[in-house]
């Protein structure tokens, strides 16, 4: 293998599994260390720079970081990254002085942002401080998009939303609520330099089976129903409720039903548990509230008596699953009627653009979704950008934020006549962490503790009010333990081949046996021959230049390194060093293009 090129920021970035997995590349270990030091405000600001909504995401993020966490490869459960983010948000001081300010003058460029969800808000967050005049339009009465309409307040309190959205609006962003955009054509005729479409994927899928129309009064589309609950248009539901579908929206629907008077809620799944779309923790929270999750039931028809919904017919299913987890055969084994008063359909959502005319230069693909560039987020019409669920279909908040950052860079370029592809690549800073003999400026010990469990409000108490936040947040003791579970993957093991005397000290002390000095070979040949075979091919091998004693190479399998620094402590020549990796990610800013804003 060739010596690893660590000048490419991607190499060390990938070692920080959580940061690499996060769409907005939040430097997770960095803010966890700040939390460990009690520097909650600093931890909050580190978060805010990349993900804009730490308080919101600290509660309801989809957490792609957690399944990626290295801890899962050496332990049972990942670090509770999301929960720690909430700790930073909950305990921060007033941050208003630290936020970007509304500039004294504008640059005269006007940006229209359609939809007041996380994507549009992020674009405004990035552009308003640069002098752009941003106007956000939203059909609903309050801003937030799906964060307000689809996420129940018992998971995400209104005041958390208001505060973080307020930070952005205070930068001089104009918000026009209850203003639905019915025609993009008309909007484009107005005096805007760029338009950003962040209108989400607002259309819930329907289920057209017999009885659907007759029982319409008691059948609800999940995301519309949640929106009506959020805006107080609905405040009760029948005693027995069936939720069709088993994604995260289904979890929100079943738990909301329990708070509106239902006492027998079943979530009906067509397939077995391993095929569920819902996040494991959301399933867990629903089941804690005694929601029954029924597998292998496929909806067939609605049953009515005297014109009123009384139940649903399901086909019971059987599946053959092969070794790879794929369904190879499906059989219907029978039918069953399950009585109910109301049914909520939570079987997915999709984009809908009835308000975009098809003759304004915006091309739609065969699924009737606009063609959007994956890097610049521009549509086929210059100056019209898409982001969030509106761009590529339903994703999640953290993806919407990253789309917003990237679209903001594009809009900034667009407004200044720069090519949209003129983007600053990622950079990196590596700095030593050595403080003295075997002293590092991070906690290099390994804490074997298990993941801390979040405490919830008592099962009776939480149903009394719709907006009682269920999760109580970590106690100081839980925080103190959980922060130490982080392996500090951003403190990189950096190797200087010319210094190595091949004494084997690092190899002997490594607690996970991830180092080997070996005669070089092709990757496939090296992997099985390492001290502990490197079986996880998703993780890279770090290969040195030839060593001066024998011409062999130092190989590190990045897979299970716990960044304890023992290799560096044991190294007599400092060939190994522990260096802090900082990803330098470009945002729309005056200097990110090397040119000052006009």
């Amino acid at each position, binding site marked *: 293998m060739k010596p690893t090129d660590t000048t490419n920021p991607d190499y060390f970035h990938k070692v920080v599994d959580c940061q690499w997995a996060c769409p907005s590349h939040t430097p997770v270990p960095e803010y966890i260390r700040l939390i460990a030091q009690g520097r909650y405000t600093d931890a909050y600001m580190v978060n805010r720079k990349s993900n804009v909504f730490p308080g919101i995401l600290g509660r309801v993020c989809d957490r792609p970081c957690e399944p990626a966490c290295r801890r899962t490869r050496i332990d049972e459960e990942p670090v509770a990254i999301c929960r720690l983010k909430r700790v930073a948000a909950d305990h921060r001081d007033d941050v208003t002085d630290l936020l970007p300010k509304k500039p004294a003058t504008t640059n005269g460029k006007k940006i229209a942002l359609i939809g007041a969800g996380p994507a549009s808000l992020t674009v405004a967050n990035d552009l308003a401080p640069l002098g752009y005049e941003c106007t956000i339009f939203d059909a609903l009465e309050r801003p937030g998009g799906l964060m307000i309409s689809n996420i129940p307040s018992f998971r995400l309190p209104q005041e958390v939303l208001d505060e973080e959205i307020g930070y952005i609006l205070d930068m001089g962003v104009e918000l026009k609520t209850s203003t639905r955009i019915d025609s993009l054509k008309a909007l484009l005729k107005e005096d805007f330099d760029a338009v950003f479409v962040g209108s989400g994927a607002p259309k819930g899928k329907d289920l057209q089976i017999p009885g659907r129309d007759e029982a319409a009064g008691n059948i609800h589309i999940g995301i519309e129903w949640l929106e009506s609950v959020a805006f107080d248009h609905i405040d009760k539901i029948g005693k027995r409720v069936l939720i069709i579908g088993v994604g995260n929206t289904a979890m929100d629907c079943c738990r909301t039903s329990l708070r509106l008077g239902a006492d027998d809620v079943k979530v009906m799944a067509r397939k077995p548990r391993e095929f569920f779309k819902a996040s494991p923790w959301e399933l867990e929270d629903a089941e804690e509230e005694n929601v029954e999750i029924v597998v292998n039931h496929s909806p067939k028809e609605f049953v009515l008596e005297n014109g009123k919904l009384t139940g649903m017919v399901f086909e019971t299913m059987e599946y053959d699953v092969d070794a790879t987890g794929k369904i190879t055969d499906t059989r219907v084994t029978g039918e069953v009627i399950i009585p109910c008063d109301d049914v909520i359909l939570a079987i997915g959502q999709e984009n809908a653009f009835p308000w975009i005319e098809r003759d304004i230069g915006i091309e739609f693909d065969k699924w009737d979704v606009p063609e959007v560039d994956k890097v610049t987020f521009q549509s086929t019409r210059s100056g019209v950008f898409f982001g969030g669920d509106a761009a590529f279909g339903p994703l999640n908040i953290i993806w919407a934020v990253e789309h917003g950052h990237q679209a903001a860079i594009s809009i900034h370029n667009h407004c200044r006549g720069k090519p949209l592809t003129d983007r600053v690549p990622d950079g990196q800073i590596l700095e030593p962490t050595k403080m003295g003999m075997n002293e590092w400026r991070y906690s290099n010990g390994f804490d*074997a503790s298990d993941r801390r469990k979040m405490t919830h409000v008592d099962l009776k108490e939480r149903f009394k009010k719709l907006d009682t936040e269920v999760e109580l947040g970590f106690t100081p003791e839980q925080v103190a333990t959980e922060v130490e579970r982080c392996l500090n993957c951003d403190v990189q093991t950096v190797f200087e081949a010319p210094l190595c005397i091949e*004494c084997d*000290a690092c190899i*002997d*002390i490594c*607690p996970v*046996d991830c180092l080997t000095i070996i005669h070089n070979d092709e990757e496939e040949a090296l992997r099985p021959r390492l001290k*502990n075979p490197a079986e996880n091919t998703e993780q890279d091998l770090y290969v040195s230049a030839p060593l001066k004693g024998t011409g062999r190479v130092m190989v590190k399998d990045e897979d299970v390194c*716990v960044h304890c620094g023992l290799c560096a402590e*044991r190294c007599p020549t400092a060939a190994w060093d522990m260096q802090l990796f900082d990803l330098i990610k470009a945002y729309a800013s005056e200097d990110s293009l090397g040119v000052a804003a006009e």
Partner: protein
Amino acid sequence: MTSIAKPRIEKHLLRNKLGLTLRDYEGGMSTLCAGCGHDSVTAALVRAFYELDLEPHTAAKVSGIGCSSKTTAYFLGQSHGVNAVHGRMPSIATGAAAANGNLHYVGVSGDGDSLSIGLGQFCHAIRRNLNMLYVVENNGVYGLTKGQFSAAADYGSKSKRGEPNPHTPIDPVKLALTLGATFVARSFSGDKEQLVPLIKAAVMHKGFALIDVISPCVTFNDHAGSTKSYAHTYEYYHRAVHTDYIQPSEEIKAEYKKGEVMEVELHDGSVIALKKVDDDLNPRDRGEVLAYLSHHEAQSEVVTGLLYIDEEKQDMNARNKLPPAPLNTLPYERLSPGAATLADLQKAYC
């Protein structure tokens, strides 16, 4: 040494036939200097016992005084052991082996402990063919007392402050050969590929097995002019014999050409496969080995590998007709047959 003990993380580690990981064969945290060759020898011992699928408690570690002798605390934490006074480890080992011949005795000593204060003891353990692995962690200096030349330092080798050594060295390998040792090897702490199979073969050899391990002192003897530094050892390193140790149940996987490999069967049915690099070395002939060593050492080469082996000689316990069972498991009447039996026995000499 390090600031923290090596954390125990085992989820991903391989396990041997007993279901144990490498970590189960480790001991306490080393307090030696970072980069000390001795820590690598420790790691090689850990790996050898792991690969031999031996339960840690079937081993007994013995050592004397010095940096090397401290290391018995760093491996096989769940085994037996005695840390003896300076140079007296062979006596302790002799007594222990006489009392219980069923344990695997691992002696760890240094060039000071074995070749100066303990030289007499070292020689007599070899003479008796005591059934043990005897590792000399050889760095040519007294590291614990800040780097004076040891008896193993080469003539003309320079101290850290530049003074040349005026004395000729005692070479434990040649000494052992002349004393009739039945397993004589040399290796290097930086070459586990060679050291681990050598340790495995030595542990399973029935008799005295000496491994002289060049184990550089990173603090006092790793400079230019030293003949026991990492750089010097790598430069003049000469593997004379490749050694494979094959356990009784294992198949011989490597393919050798006919006549290229010498197979030595040990008492337990395991096999040592020796692949010679040079034709003029016969690991069955003491005289040839001594000549070979003299020839290559004249060119400053560090000759390594299993240099001599003899499986035929009886070990100490066999020579003295000691019972196979540990003495403490014998009934008291057999262990101490009484005055009448003694009187009978003495009549033979009257």
